[in-house]
């Protein structure tokens, strides 16, 4: 058997890809998107809280943020997912049964928040001190100045790093399969893996990989476009232009 034929059988078995495609679209893709979107939202909110705590002048707010970041950044993701997903499930079973998704999302979000918190913190700290000073000089309080002036600038500076983190999160969402999933709960990787085991070739996993790329690659380009637009500013605001030229008509 020549090499090409072996590779072809292993990775490009169109029949097994075709067979798994509907399930991958209807179940796997949907579940991966749910896991990733929920973790991105929760991880970003928690990450912002961790960042703001980490930047606080109060030590009792700064220290917990630092300890939190050290722990969740220092542990392997799979370990955290298993500890939270399996460890807390006897407690949370009363609320949503044996469904591993809520705890999986919680674990992924807690891990992401440690990284996202550091990304936000570095972005916020990179904003020139004069910006907050100018806001305070106008009469804004510290929190309002941070919220309206400093944080938006800091976040914009770290958008590419933030999207890298989102992409990592989308990929890491596959780890929830360790928590044991029902057939309807399987995400892209698990469906690919199950089909690969049944068919005896890796083509379904390659298909799962293509789906991951379909999600992650456009995301990178989207953020690059958004980043460029923010740097250059929006096209002239028509409403403002109208007001400016109102007298000249």
């Amino acid at each position, binding site marked *: 058997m020549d090499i090409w034929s072996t590779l072809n059988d292993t990775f490009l078995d169109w029949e097994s890809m075709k067979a798994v495609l509907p399930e991958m679209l209807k179940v796997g893709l949907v579940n991966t998107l749910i896991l990733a979107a929920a973790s991105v939202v929760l991880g970003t909110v928690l990450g912002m809280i961790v960042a703001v705590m980490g930047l606080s002048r109060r030590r009792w707010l700064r220290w917990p943020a630092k300890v939190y970041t050290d722990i969740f950044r220092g542990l392997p993701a799979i370990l955290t997912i298993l500890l939270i997903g399996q460890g807390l499930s006897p407690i949370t079973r009363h609320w949503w049964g044996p469904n591993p998704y809520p705890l999986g999302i919680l674990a992924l979000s807690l891990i992401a928040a440690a990284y996202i918190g550091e990304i936000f913190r570095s972005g916020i700290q990179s904003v020139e001190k004069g910006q907050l000073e*100018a806001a305070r000089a*106008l009469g804004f309080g510290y929190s309002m100045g941070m919220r309206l002036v400093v944080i938006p600038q800091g976040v914009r500076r770290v958008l590419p790093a933030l999207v890298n983190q989102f992409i990592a999160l989308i990929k890491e969402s596959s780890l929830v399969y360790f928590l044991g999933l029902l057939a309807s709960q399987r995400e892209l990787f698990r469906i690919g893996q199950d089909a690969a085991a049944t068919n005896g070739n890796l083509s379904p996993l390659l298909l799962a990989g293509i789906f991951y790329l379909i999600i992650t690659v456009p995301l990178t380009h989207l953020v690059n476009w958004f980043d460029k637009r923010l740097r250059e500013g929006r096209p002239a605001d028509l409403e403002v232009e109208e007001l400016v030229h109102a007298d000249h008509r």
Partner: protein
Amino acid sequence: MPTIVESAASLELTGIELAFGKNKVLRGVDLAVPAGSTACVIGPSGSGKSTLLRATNRLLEPAAGDIKLGGESVLKSNPDELRRRIGMVFQHFNLFPHKSVLDNITLPLRKLKKLTKEGAAEAALEQLELVGLKEKASARPGNLSGGQQQRVAIARALAMKPEVMLFDEATSALDPELVKGVLGLMADLADAGMTMVVVTHEMGFARQVADQVAFMDHGVVVEAGPPDKLFTAAESPRLRQFLSQVL
């Protein structure tokens, strides 16, 4: 410049002290600026001029002394509310780069003065027209020259209808050809009756525009008086030495 000053107030600083750790930066500064007059503060680097401005609007809290605005002590009032009454212009402009020129001015009007979007835009455009930059309303600060940015920063401060304006070396970061425009605007503002405290290295401006000039060194006002007297008949040797270096 049309009359734009609605409520200029007097400013009186007495015995202002301020330290960074053990380093005493202000050691009992006295300065009285009558309503509608301009005081220029001159002095060598590190003499405490910029710190004095920041103590005046309580960006830095004085350790001792009193600040009176319109005859009333403001040390016990809410510092955020005090700052809405005192405009400040910085050396590096400090415009918000993520917002358009118009939004830089409307942001405090909407959020602090609770003006409607339309009301704030109208007030902002009025100020932009006064500083000759109405056409730049939708531009980003990064696309303007340094002089234009500083004029927007002045418009942003004026839009809050301040009772006093503080200028912290407002032209030091500008290219020489842009300095004149900003100084001209500040002179117009002084003519219009604004109470102003101007920290500056522009001795020509201090001489022509100031009603009084205060020379600071080592955290105190060493000598103060009308510009003619200070520049031609300085009493303290330290001021004479300073003037011989900068003139």
